[in-house]
Structure formats: structure tokens, C-alpha cells
């Protein structure tokens, strides 16, 4: 698996996606504390987002009711965050469009151009092959404490958190 900086969404888009959202449905969220999906969801929850777990295997994760699929979620969803195999992304993108989500976020290693195109055509913003937690920490603080090249150049004080 190779990550490419070339496909990165621009900073303004990422800021808009994260600042305009309150609810994140995490598809494929694991209840195991050491799994990356759990890391990311717990982090976003701690930073003020409502995390809605989507996984038919569980009843509840991180203190939130877990739904078997996106269609079962009774409330409005801003970001659909996908922790599934790349080939599973297309039906999830269709579901995301169907429930009126604003943004489709495919995690690191989840690459599916067809899913991306479908969501974009329906007006969703698409972020692909990036981690929601890492990008949040990159833009709003945290990641720069670990020597990661955030590519943020500014002489203004720290950006306020959304």
C-alpha cells in the first residue's frame, strides 16, 4: 500500500468539511480499543463530534448505539467515514447519498474512484485515502507535536478549533 500526497484534498476543503460538521457515521468501526478505527472515532468524539457507529456486529461502541447500516440511522449525518475494504466503498457511497450525508470520507488505504465520482456527482465533498483524525490534528493542532510535515505555513496564532 502506498500513500500519495498528490491526492490530498487542499487545506481549505478539509477545513470546511471538518468545521461544518457535527455528526460522523463511522462505517466499519471496531469495538477493539487498539484498532485504528477505534483510535480515530474516540479522538473525534473527544474533540466534540457526535460519533455514530455503523457495524452489524455490535450493539454499542464508545457509549453510542451502533447501527447495522447507514439507512438505519434516525438522525442527520454530516460525514460518512469509511473503514472498510476499498471494494466495499461503492455501496456505502450510494447509501451515503441516499441518507443525504454532506461529505464522504474514505480512510487511509480505502481508494475507490467509482465511489468517489458517484458521491461527487450527488454534491458530496469527497476526501479519499486520508485519516479523519490525522487531518483534524493536522489542521487544528496535535499532529505537529509528532514531527509530521503538516505543510501548514502561517504567522497567525493557532487556528481555533471548530
Amino acid at each position: 500500500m502506498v500513500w500519495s500526497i498528490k491526492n490530498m484534498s487542499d487545506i481549505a476543503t478539509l477545513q470546511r468539511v471538518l468545521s461544518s460538521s457535527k455528526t460522523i457515521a463511522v462505517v466499519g468501526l471496531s469495538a477493539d480499543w487498539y484498532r485504528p478505527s477505534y483510535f480515530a472515532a474516540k479522538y473525534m468524539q473527544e474533540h466534540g463530534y457526535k460519533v455514530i457507529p455503523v457495524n452489524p456486529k455490535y450493539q454499542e461502541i464508545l457509549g453510542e448505539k451502533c447501527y447495522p447500516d447507514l439507512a438505519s440511522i434516525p438522525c442527520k449525518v454530516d460525514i460518512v467515514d469509511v473503514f472498510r475494504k476499498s471494494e466495499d466503498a461503492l455501496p456505502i457511497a450510494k447509501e451515503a447519498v441516499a441518507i443525504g450525508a454532506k461529505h464522504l470520507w474514505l480512510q487511509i488505504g480505502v481508494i475507490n474512484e467509482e465511489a468517489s465520482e458517484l458521491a461527487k456527482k450527488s454534491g458530496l465533498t469527497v476526501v479519499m485515502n486520508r485519516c479523519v483524525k490525522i487531518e483534524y490534528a493536522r489542521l487544528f493542532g496535535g499532529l505537529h507535536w509528532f514531527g509530521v510535515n503538516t505543510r501548514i505555513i502561517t504567522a497567525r496564532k493557532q487556528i481555533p478549533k471548530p
Partner: protein
Amino acid sequence: MTDHVYGFDTLCLHSGQIPDSDTGSRAVPIYQTTSYVFDTPEEAASLFNLQTFGNVYTRLSNPTVAVLEERVAALENGRAAVAVGSGMAAQMIALLNICEAGDEIVAAKTLYGGTHTQLNVNFRKLGINTIFVDSDDPENFARAITSKTKVLYAETLGNPSLNILDIEAVSKIANQAGLPLFIDNTFASPYLCRPFEWGAAISIHSATKFLGGHGTTMGGVVVESGKFPWDNGNFSTMTQPSPGYHGVRFYETFGDFGFTMKCRMEGLRTFGPTLSPFNAFLLLQGVETLPLRMDRHCSNALAVAKHLEAHDKVAWVNYPGLKSSQSYELGQKYLPKGAGAVLTFGIKGGAAAGKKFIESVQFLSHLANIGDAKSLVIHPASTTHRQLSEQEQIDCGVPPDLIRLSVGLETLEDILWDIDQALSQT
């Protein structure tokens, strides 16, 4: 909309620092602290689990050191970096991140003497064996690779032989074998050469040299390109649960900066070669003027090399910027802005004449370092490479008469004057 791409000089001044929200301090604050208070027990647990990004203990991370890390990562156009207490610690942490007992390293035989000893003596004691090859023919790396090989290791410019590695050719050999190429890029600095552009996976610096640039401060940096596929089947320590950090899978969890996170949470945490925050501050001061200094280092060094080449007391001169150099063609490719500050030469009369030269210089400093703003001179066979046998010295490019010069930023006419007056006494 695409993000603006900043130039190298801007990155030298700004990367890694967001002015802090409380004070607005323009200079990078020195966080001279060992530890950081937690808000709650839950937050502390999250930090230890790496579930949130934050500081716990300066052995692992520090906000001043982090600015240096991000800045050097940006200069190398890499994904992430980790800074440590010296260049030697940097290569140790980087190599031990993926090598264990039974593994092999294939390395250029012209490495700096201290590096050669680290691999040939200290790593061998740990059960990690290094095969040293003549790096001037890239195919020698291919011939030495076995099923036990984990990494290829070389310097942009050999020290002190100043042979330039064909980075692109060796990268290709490494990548075909599913192995990363680690490059010690100390002599070039990211201003003159960026190994990732030629396919290297990891770049290592002794920041003590040109990054710091003023001979005040020890430090080292490991930079990760973010492009190496650690899940290709050869690096289970990157993909399997870490026994050293409660089962974290570094590549899966941190992706393209997983190598750096593993260096930090395993290497720095358990071996402990931390960079002091104050030293990080001093190194950052140096990095701000890196492009200006490197341009002057290179123009002064080329002028000194040409002057020595024409001098009737000088037997030979080796500088990759000279057309007479074996590395001239590779230099045009990999170091187009200049061939660096360091050159070597031999005086007619051999080692004895060399000794007399070093005794006779007025302001060239006789010491064991390179990359100071001041001009430096040394006789490696009796100092930096003294631990090697004479044959080993010759093998790694150190004949007995070799004098190494790290040309500084003084007025060029003064440097030439000092060299001439010292040569006249030999």
C-alpha cells in the same frame, strides 16, 4: 483549489511553527520541560495509548524539538521526522527500527569512520551483520542482497572520499528487492540534494553539521519519505503488533508516518537518545539561514579547490565540483547547486608535509567536524579514521596523506591566504 507550494527558503524559516495562541511569540519558544500535565486520568490514558496526539514526556516528544522535526521533514519534502541527540543516534534509531538479530545491512564501504564502526563492530555484537560494498558500482549492492537483507545504506557524499552515490540507480535496486534505501544526507543538506526525489525511503542527518551550521550543537534527524510500502511482506515489525508498545501496529495505525512513530515510541522511548529542547532551538536558528550558507560554502569550496589544483606544492585535489573529479558527472545530476563545503587534498611530501600544513594554518581550525560557518581542517588517518587499520583506511578512501578541508564562510581571499602561507611552510 490547490494549496500554494512554498519555496525552500520560506520552509527554512516557517515550517513547523504556528505562533502559540497564548503569547504570540514569534521566535520558537524553548519548552525546557521534562513532562506535561494531564487534564484528566482519561486524557492521560488516551495519550499513553496514542489515541490522541499530545505530549507526555520529553524523551518521546517536545514542542520545541517538534518544530525542528517538522521543519527538516518539510525541507526533505518528506512525510515526517524524528530528532535525536546526535547523527550517530539518528542512524542507530533508524536502522534498529527495522533490523534485528539475524538480519543484514548492505552498506557503502566509504562511510564515515564512526558509522563504519557502529555497523561493523557494535551492530555485529547485536547479531546484525553488514556487508560493505564498493558503492561506485550500484550493481555491487544488488550482488550483496540476500534473503536476510533489510536495508541498503549509503551517504550522498562519502566521508571523506567524497564519492557521490548514484542514488537513483541504487534506489531502483533496493525497490526491486522490496528494500528501503537509507541515505545519510548530512554532507549535502536538503538544500543541495533531496534523496526522496531519487527514490530513497529514509534520509538521515547529523544536524550538528550544516543544518545547525555554527559548530555549537549536537543533533540528528531521521526523515521518512512516506512512500515506502512497509507492508510488502519484508517488515513484520512495521505491520505486526508491537511487543514494545502494547500491540500497536505502527504501519496500519499511522500509515505514511508509521516508521517515524515507531522510531519515537520504541527507539526513543527505550534507548533514550533525546535531543535537548535548547539544542533544538539552536539548530533551528541555523536552519533559518541554510540556503544562504550553503551557497557561500559551495562557491568558496569550489574556488579553494581550483586554487589548490593549480598550486605547485599540491599533489592532488578531490572535490566533486572539479571536472577532474571521478564524481563530477554524478555531481551535475545530484548536486546541481554546488558540490558542498568539503574537499580533500594531498601535499607533495605525503603525511609529514600534511602534518606541517596543519601545524602552520593561522585561522583554519584544526578539529574533528565539518559544516561549521568557520573553515575547518583535519588529517583523518590520525584522527576520525584512526580506529581503522591502514588497509581499512585505504578501503574507505583515506590515504595517509589526505587532508580534509571544510570550507567556511570567511572572506575567500583570507582562506586562500591562510592556505598559501601554510603550504609555503611545508
